[in-house]
């Protein structure tokens, strides 16, 4: 089978994007006014795209399921955003950011896309500062940086532990300016339930008004999906409760290929599961690994005593602690990439050293005592305190740590009732981000003409593992600096098309499809709530398609998910009526889609007989337990075509070519 065409421009890597921009077709300002663009999702990618396209003159219709675009889940990103500014003079460059991202992604991303991302990264910081985003600054008034996993430079810009919030509010403010001008029409509390194709091109969507339940038709000359990732297929994740794959899955069912669904990021530092009443998991930012040290007890009996509450972590002597990341990966230490850190935690817990008193004992310590002492001594020196007492050192040190991570420490204390200044945090990996997503070419266009996917919803830049602080970078790069160019090249053909009518057979059919499905859910009158099925799906996914996978477990998962889906359609109960505010109906539609996506996810994981990045197959590992890639057979993007059932999806491949980096075994030792 021929490789999928990524439409990557010719020329040297560093010139591709510039040459591309110089050669695309442009739409003149008068014609832009005649063109409508629909954007689904208003996070960093969707929000920035909506604002920029409206600034250019297009008529934008933006949709979000929340009550305001400001609530999109990008807001919860904590640690920071990468950019190759080299303000620290520590040797950073566009090439290094590109290289780190390719390597961090375990050589499973597209070179040209990643290089472009690194190239525009610096513009993002300039743009955000111009918008008034209050990044952290030093006493000279200039921007501050910190370091994140998998890199040896400090290129991460941040706003305390609320970077995503500040960037999203920046994009939201840019949207507000266009909403005020009437260039963006905002549809809050609306959910897209299908895409409408006319003559093979995306020309509109069917959306449900979540307040009235009304089914609406909206047309446009192009449709952009910016609806985020599908981590909630696991039920428990760090995603928002409403985060869903519905928009992405609907376009997949209408012809957009879905790429690498098995690439999921399990983030190493989250607050562990407390019990079966839990609804979601909370992330503790990767930035904490700048100062926190991860460990478990060296002795099994100590681990047991900690779990039973008979031994406090602070009473375990230094020599009885196993700082396993520092031990195994001396050069990167606690700042190894996320996939590596997560697997190492699982390895220790599987070996019996976990420290949490729950059914799985899954938890490790994240300890700030060394940092508090180090900062305390430094501050005492700065303040001229001679022979400071231990109390004084700790007090000064805690103040420094509070200024860096205060809000995260407060959040931890709220949730766990433990004081992380005095006792180490307890953490464990949790589902956080999905690198896989809708397949797009270099233009960010899906396999359906006029249908685009940006941000976490697409698959393009992170390969098999995303580096910390790169999601924000990609979302804003796509929305501010990439899509506004690439979509123009496509829309240049539409200057004479005129408004797209919605009273056509294509819209009729799509609307009927949506209303039929809603009726089916409402009239089913089964015996179990939607959450009952969602939790079951999450269990299958976490146990068999989670941090470590094997062929047998994946085959079982595929069957179990298919069975669960059948049971769902027979036995789900959705109370209320369709034409009202009905949150259970919203959830039901989303979980129905997860029940299909989960199966494709497991199939993709079964098909990929290698370990790479976040995809770890137990059959494919080195003697030291590290991931073993198979470059000869699997240096490709797996792009799935829907044909009626997830089990019958057809696999297409995009071969990945590396002309500028050498494929190596990823080592952080």
């Amino acid at each position, binding site marked *: 089978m021929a490789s999928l065409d990524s439409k990557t421009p010719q020329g040297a890597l560093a010139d591709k994007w510039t040459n591309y921009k110089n050669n695309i077709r442009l739409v003149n300002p008068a014609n832009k006014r005649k063109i409508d663009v629909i954007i689904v999702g208003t996070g960093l990618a969707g929000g920035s795209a909506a604002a920029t396209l409206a600034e250019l003159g297009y008529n934008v219709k933006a949709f979000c399921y929340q009550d305001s675009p400001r609530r999109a889940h990008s807001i919860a990103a904590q640690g920071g955003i990468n950019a190759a500014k080299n303000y620290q003079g520590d040797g950073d460059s566009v090439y290094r950011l590109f290289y780190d991202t390719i390597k961090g992604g375990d050589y499973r991303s597209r070179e040209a896309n990643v290089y472009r991302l690194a190239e525009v990264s610096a513009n993002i910081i300039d*743009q955000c500062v111009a918008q008034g985003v209050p990044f952290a600054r030093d006493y000279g008034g200039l921007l501050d940086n910190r370091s994140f996993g998998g890199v040896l430079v400090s290129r991460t810009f941040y706003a305390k532990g609320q970077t995503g919030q500040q960037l999203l509010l920046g994009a939201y403010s840019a949207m507000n300016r266009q909403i005020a001008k009437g260039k963006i029409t905002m549809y809050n509390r609306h959910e897209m339930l299908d895409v409408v194709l006319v003559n093979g091109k995306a020309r509109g969507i069917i959306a449900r008004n979540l307040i009235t339940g009304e089914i609406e038709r909206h047309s446009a000359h192009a449709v952009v999906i910016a609806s985020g990732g599908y981590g909630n297929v696991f039920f428990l994740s760090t995603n928002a409760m409403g985060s869903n794959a519905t928009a992405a899955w609907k376009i997949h069912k209408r012809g957009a290929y879905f790429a690498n669904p098995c690439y999921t990021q399990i983030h190493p530092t989250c607050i562990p599961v407390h019990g079966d009443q839990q609804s979601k998991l909370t992330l503790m930012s990767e930035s904490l690994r700048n100062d926190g040290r991860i460990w478990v007890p060296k002795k099994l009996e100590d681990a047991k005593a900690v779990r039973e509450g008979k031994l406090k972590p602070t009473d375990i002597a230094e020599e009885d602690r196993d700082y396993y990341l520092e031990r195994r990966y001396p050069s990167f230490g606690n700042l190894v990439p996320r996939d590596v850190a997560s697997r190492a935690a699982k390895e220790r817990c599987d070996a019996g050293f976990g420290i949490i008193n729950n059914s799985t004992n899954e938890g490790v310590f994240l300890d700030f005592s060394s940092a508090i002492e180090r900062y305390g001594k430094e501050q005492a020196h700065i303040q001229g305190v001679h022979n400071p007492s231990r109390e004084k050192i700790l007090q000064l040190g805690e103040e420094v740590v509070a200024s860096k991570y205060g809000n995260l420490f407060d959040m931890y204390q709220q949730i766990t009732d433990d004081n992380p200044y005095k006792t180490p945090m307890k953490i464990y990996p949790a589902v956080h981000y999905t690198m896989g997503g809708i397949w797009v070419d270099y233009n960010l266009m899906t396999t359906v003409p006029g249908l685009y996917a940006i941000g976490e919803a697409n698959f393009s830049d992170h390969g098999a593992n995303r580096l910390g602080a790169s999601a924000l970078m990609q979302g804003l790069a796509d929305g501010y600096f990439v899509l506004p160019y690439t979509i123009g090249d496509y829309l240049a053909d539409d200057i004479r098309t005129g408004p797209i009518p919605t009273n056509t057979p294509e819209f009729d059919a799509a609307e009927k499809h949506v209303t039929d499905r809603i009726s089916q859910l409402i009239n089913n009158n089964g015996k179990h709530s939607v959450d009952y099925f969602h939790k079951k799906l999450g269990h299958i996914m976490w146990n068999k398609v989670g941090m470590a996978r094997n062929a047998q477990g994946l085959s079982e998962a595929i069957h179990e998910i298919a069975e669960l889906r059948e049971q769902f359609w027979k036995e789900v109960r959705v109370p209320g009526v369709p034409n009202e505010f009905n949150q259970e109906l919203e959830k039901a539609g989303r979980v129905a889609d997860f029940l299909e996506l989960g199966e494709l996810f497991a199939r993709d994981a079964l098909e990929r007989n290698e370990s790479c990045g976040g995809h770890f197959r137990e059959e494919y590992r080195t003697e030291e337990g590290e991931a073993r890639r198979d470059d000869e057979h699997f240096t490709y993007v797996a792009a799935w075509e829907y044909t009626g059932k997830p089990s019958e999806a057809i696999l297409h491949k995009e071969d990945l070519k590396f002309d500028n980096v050498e494929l190596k075994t990823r080592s952080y030792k």
Partner: protein
Amino acid sequence: MNLTLQIWRQKNADAKGAMETYKVENISPDSSFLEMLDILNDQLINEGKEPVAFDHDCREGICGMCSLQINGEPHGPGRAITTCQLHMRKFKDGDTIYIEPFRAKAFPVIKDLVVDRSAFDRIQHAGGYISVNTSGNTQDANAIPVEKEKADKAFDAATCIGCGACVAACKNASAMLFTSAKVSQFALLPQGRIEATERVLNMVKQMDLEGFGNCTNTGACEIECPKGISLENIARMNREYLKASVK
């Protein structure tokens, strides 16, 4: 823990609402308040009844979607947290808990505990931005140094999550804290000074049009604000407004 819940039920915006009584049992003190409501809803669905509608999303205290007036306080007992970060250990076994929507004329009820806060968005449309286009040619970020103290204050103001607790806490249902947070953030930054006059006049005008009350300096908003937005911002907005009015 076993609890009695008194919850506001209202079918839609036009219907008349009323408090109804529910019981939940075996709630873990480690559960969050919203997880407790999830359990109640699961129970109601299994009994063939309508679950209680409430807004929520990130459950990490940052999106601003969750609301709830719990025992008369926005976001319930506990300071500097949203409802989703409130945990059941703050209550006692056997307690009766009163749960209502945020109450304000400018926040009409949509259903049960869900209110319409789009008035907040409209205040932002009136001026909550700096007029700069995306071009890739804006000046280098470090070409605009900002005094650290001012940058930190701008950040503190910018952490507002737009939840509406300030309005719900205020006896006048005033949106001064919310509006002043955005006015302050931009007033403190050199990038924001250029449009400062227009911004404060337009945002305050829209705030008044939406039907929010005025500020009588009781400070309830600051106490209930989950992000600890300071009253200082209201003072700063008043000064900006005065300056803009006499220009």
